[in-house]
């Protein structure tokens, strides 16, 4: 009948020491208890209202008891609302766990009450300060709608951008170093600072402008350009800078440094190095921001391929394009370079031959391009072989029993060539790791082992592709050109094979012999060790 169960009354009476309570009394008591509890709660609500609160606390019940001249219940004072827990198995039963009170660490001394003032409104308009509640989302939506309708176009006022004095000084120092002393140690320190320091974000637009400006002005100075590209590299490395919004400003400059016709003094400057470096830079940008700008990589690739396939472009441009494509990964090479390999080689070949190209400079350039091609195609093939090791066909017919090849196994590892040599092939397989490591980084390749004459001087330094090319350009021309004739003879068939090379199901094994035909034994260096041993 009443919400207070009679059992409770019984239990309470027993706890008070009344054991012989007549059962007839219980319902009457229960209803009376409920009535008075309700009454007290109503008084408590009144007290709560006068304390200007909307949550009832134990204090309110105490004051309500006081209003009724009942002795208050002590021991429940708490400034904060009590945390109730649901009793397991009961729907509407809650309790406060005593354990929390006893086990809890001593609370901190409460902070003293303080008063803070702020403007809730100034002439009826709420200022947007942290003390005020954020404006309703509703109004924002409405604004957006208007914009869509084109009814009201909200024009953003130009924001005056104030650079701190310190940042101005920093910027001046960096630009000065880049322009004047890009080879000094101080500049390296500056690059480290650029790559790590936080708080440089305000300078990013200025740097972007600076780089674009300087690149267009210093196309003749490759040292300057390298310095600038390093600047870009450092900016990209800095985790505190969000460079995405400025990429569109930077990319033209970077692409210029990769595929420009003339970079620096043709004879004295090492523009190959600049192109190599920039190729890696492009790859880095594509890798990191490709997911933000969906069209970034396609656009870069398109530019590079156009350059690569345009016979009117100068050879250094071709070199840059090939390097760029190679840096973008083996799949790019497979899709875009391999199908065009055969005609391109045909085009390139005369340039490399002493008899046909009298200009030593042009010949050198051609050999550079050839080296870049070998590297790109080789890396691609290496990647394929790693991926599909079982597809290797028996290649014994092709391979010559050249003992040097077997003994001087090339390694893809940087600067650990010697150590690796000592290790058994199995272990090397394990250390070689996933092929992914090969794609993004520029892989220094030990090109030793093709022809014994220059094996000694081929210790490849950090991303020093030119050195490889040089070795080729020295005197090996004749041997290769001899093979080139062979290539020409079986031209038609092989080009068909190459054109299908992009197909996934295509037997990779067929690729290798073909490439072998093109490039000779240098290709074997790109075959992963275990496969190579299998092959031979």
């Amino acid at each position, binding site marked *: *009948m*009443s919400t207070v169960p009679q059992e409770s009354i019984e239990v309470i009476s027993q706890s008070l020491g009344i054991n012989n309570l007549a059962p007839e009394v219980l319902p*009457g008591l229960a*209803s*009376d208890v*409920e*009535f008075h*509890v*309700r*009454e007290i709660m*109503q008084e408590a609500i*009144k007290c709560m*209202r*006068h*304390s*200007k*609160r*909307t*949550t009832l*606390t134990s*204090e309110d019940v105490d*004051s309500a008891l*006081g*209003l009724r001249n009942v002795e208050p219940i002590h021991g429940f004072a708490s*400034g*904060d*609302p009590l945390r109730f827990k649901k009793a397991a198995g009961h729907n509407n039963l809650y309790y406060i766990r005593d354990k929390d009170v006893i086990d809890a660490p001593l609370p901190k001394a*409460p*902070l*003293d*009450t*303080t*008063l*803070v*003032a*702020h*403007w*809730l*409104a*100034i*002439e*009826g*308009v*709420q200022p947007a*300060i942290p*003390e*005020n*509640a954020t404006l*309703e989302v509703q109004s924002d939506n409405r604004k957006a709608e208007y914009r869509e309708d084109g009814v009201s176009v909200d024009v953003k006022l130009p924001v005056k951008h104030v650079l701190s004095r310190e940042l101005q000084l920093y910027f001046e120092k960096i630009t000065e170093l880049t322009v004047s002393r890009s080879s000094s140690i101080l500049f390296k320190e500056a690059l480290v600072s650029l790559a790590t320091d936080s708080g440089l974000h305000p300078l990013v637009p200025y740097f972007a402008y600076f780089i674009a400006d300087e690149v267009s002005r210093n196309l003749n100075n490759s040292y300057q350009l390298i310095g600038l590209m390093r600047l870009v590299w450092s900016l990209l490395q800095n985790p505190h800078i969000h460079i995405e919004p400025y990429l569109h400003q930077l990319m033209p400059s970077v692409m210029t440094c990769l595929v420009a016709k003339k970079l620096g003094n043709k004879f004295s400057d090492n523009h190959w190095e600049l192109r190599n470096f920039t190729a890696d830079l492009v790859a880095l940008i594509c890798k990191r921001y490709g997911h933000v700008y969906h069209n970034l990589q396609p656009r870069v690739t398109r530019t590079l391929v156009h350059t690569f396939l345009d016979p009117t472009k100068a050879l250094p441009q071709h070199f840059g394009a090939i390097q760029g494509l190679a840096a973008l990964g083996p799949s790019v090479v497979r899709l875009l370079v391999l199908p065009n390999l055969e005609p391109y080689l045909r085009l390139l070949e005369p340039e490399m031959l002493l008899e046909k190209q009298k200009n030593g400079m042009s010949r050198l350039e051609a050999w550079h391009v050839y080296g870049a091609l070998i590297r790109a195609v080789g890396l691609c093939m290496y990647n394929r072989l790693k991926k599909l090791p079982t597809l290797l066909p028996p290649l014994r017919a092709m391979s010559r029993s050249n003992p040097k090849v077997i003994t001087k196994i090339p390694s893809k590892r940087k600067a650990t060539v010697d150590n690796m040599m000592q290790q058994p092939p199995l272990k090397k397989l394990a250390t070689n790791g996933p092929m992914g490591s090969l794609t993004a980084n520029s892989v220094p390749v030990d090109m030793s082992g093709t022809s014994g004459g220059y094996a000694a001087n081929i210790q490849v330094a950090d991303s020093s592709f030119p050195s490889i090319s040089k070795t080729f350009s020295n005197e090996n021309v004749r041997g290769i050109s001899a093979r080139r004739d062979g290539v020409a003879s079986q031209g038609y068939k092989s080009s068909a094979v190459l054109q299908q090379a992009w197909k996934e199901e295509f037997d990779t094994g067929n690729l290798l012999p073909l490439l072998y035909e093109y490039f000779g034994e240098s290709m074997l260096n790109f075959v992963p060790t275990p496969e190579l041993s299998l092959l031979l």
Partner: protein
Amino acid sequence: MDEEEIEKAVMTYLKKKGFKQTELAFQEEQQRQHPKTALHSTNSHVDPEIACQILSFSSELESNPAQYHEGYGKLRSWAYSSLDLYKHELLRVLYPVFVHCFMDLIAKGHIQEARTLFNSFREDHEMMHARDLQKLEGVLSPSHLEEMEFAHSLRQSKFNIKICQYSYDLLLQYLHKTQSVVMLGLINEHINFQVSPGQPTSISDDAEVVTLMGSGQDAVNLINQKEIHWGLLEDSLEERLEKAGALVPDSAKVDGEAREGEVEENKKRPYEGGKQGASLKKSKKDKVATATGKASRVETSTVSVAPRVKPELTLPSIPAEVEHSILEDLRNRVQLSSAALPSISFYTFINTHNGLNCASISQDGSLVAGGFSDSSLKVWDMAKLGQQTGYATSQIVEDSYPSDSLLGANSGRKSYTLFQGHSGPVYSATFSPFGDYILSSSSDSTIRLWSTNLNTNLVCYKGHNYPVWDVQFSPVGHYFASSSHDRTARIWSMDRMQPLRIMAGHLSDVDCLQWHANCNYIATGSSDKTVRLWDVQSGECVRIFIGHRSMILSLAMSPDGRYMASGDEDGTVMMWELASGRCISPLVGHTSCVWTLAFSCEGSLLASGSADCTVKLWDVTASTKLLKTEDNKTGSINRLRSLKTLPTKSTPVYSLQFSRRNLLFAAGVLSKNT
């Protein structure tokens, strides 16, 4: 048993019970019966049957509790299925019937049946009468009915229901047809129908239709017919400023009348007049006319300027320098309107640990007092916290200065002055008009007077028997009023230990009070859902305002003395015209308790602060103008226009105060867990 005897017995029974309609029905029945008996050769064997039927009927009335449930259920479904035009009027009948059915059942001891009745039909009335139902729910035995005042007052008084003639006829017809004597009896006993001819009233104004009066409607009407001099005080500073500014030629006449009150004031006048340069004057040009016709009762005056009345209390004199500063403020006052909204400076209390019960801001906003549940009263001097009084800084200055704590116990570095003396939670605090005194009321049933200059307790006023919920200084200072759980409001003066007047009449706690601008009246809001206006001089109740549906939490008087606003627990704010005692319009918008209300100094705006963490600004002039033009006809339908809602950052607004320059100050507690 003689047939006529039985009939007589039945008739007397019906008469005794007041079942007039049944009586009529019975007579009709008799008429029909007689021809029948004439036909059937006067056989007496039918008569005992009727007698038995009737007797059993009456005995059933006593014993059968199921009848209530059934009868009410039928009445309910009938009312709900009636025509839409009359439906809302007929539905009004349900609540009183329901409540009395329940109480009848309880009184007769059918507790179980009462419970089932209550639980099956309570949803119908949940929206309108949730709190009453909560109270009634606990009633479980006849003795509880005796104990509980609410039930008591329900039993003793009648509900007033306005109903149109046709609806009334419909109801009667139904009751006759169904022979539901129980319902008929209840309706007859507890409902007072005010039958009006013509069309049924519109649905919208049903707020005040079902009201319960302790003393009955007639008494209320009688009270509300009393005369109120709601005009402003003559010779107030504002008036003098206006006069000086406008240089009204015949101000001498007014001066002559004013002179009898205070002679010394005249000396200052030329001085002030000289000071008046580019004072802003109100655009009311017909000032002279009303000034001459002062103290006359202008109930439905269309004149925009309030009439002047003489003070009934002897007013304290104002120090010259204070007066000067007030005049300066008045001159610099910003004119607010619906187009020119005020600036609001918000004072946020932090780290109160749910302990702050009230906040009060002095006239100029420089002092803020907080009453805490740990019996302490803390006063912050905002001038010391920020840089300037009127231009509060947005950040608290961290360097706290040594506290001049009252008891010296808390001599640590505090940013406030601590006043200790109460022995219970402090429920209210109020600043004197010039900020030199604070009054605080507490649950220890005392009121204490503190000096802000000396930082000490001056007087402890004892008189109330229960917690004092509210205390308010009069607009001129010196006098103050308090309201308490003991259902009285009392008027005090600072120099007397005993109250000057005791206002008794509310049926429940007096929760809040406010002085009228002319100091001749105070308004009190109570848990009995009424607001009353009392004459300070006579101590009589002069107005009763009925319409709120829950306890009244805040009151505000318009500066021109014409209107009053009251806010309740549900978030409704009501605007009343004092002269007529009628509600101009309910202001709906807040979703939770309206803790505080404030009129702007020229009375064009009303600000309300609520537990729903908003400050709302309402346009007063628009609605009152509308009322005047349309001649009060559709007054209750028009809603006051809400101008602006300013949300705070989870900070319920405890207090609002317009400074004399019309800067709005607000105070609230940052509550994280809401």
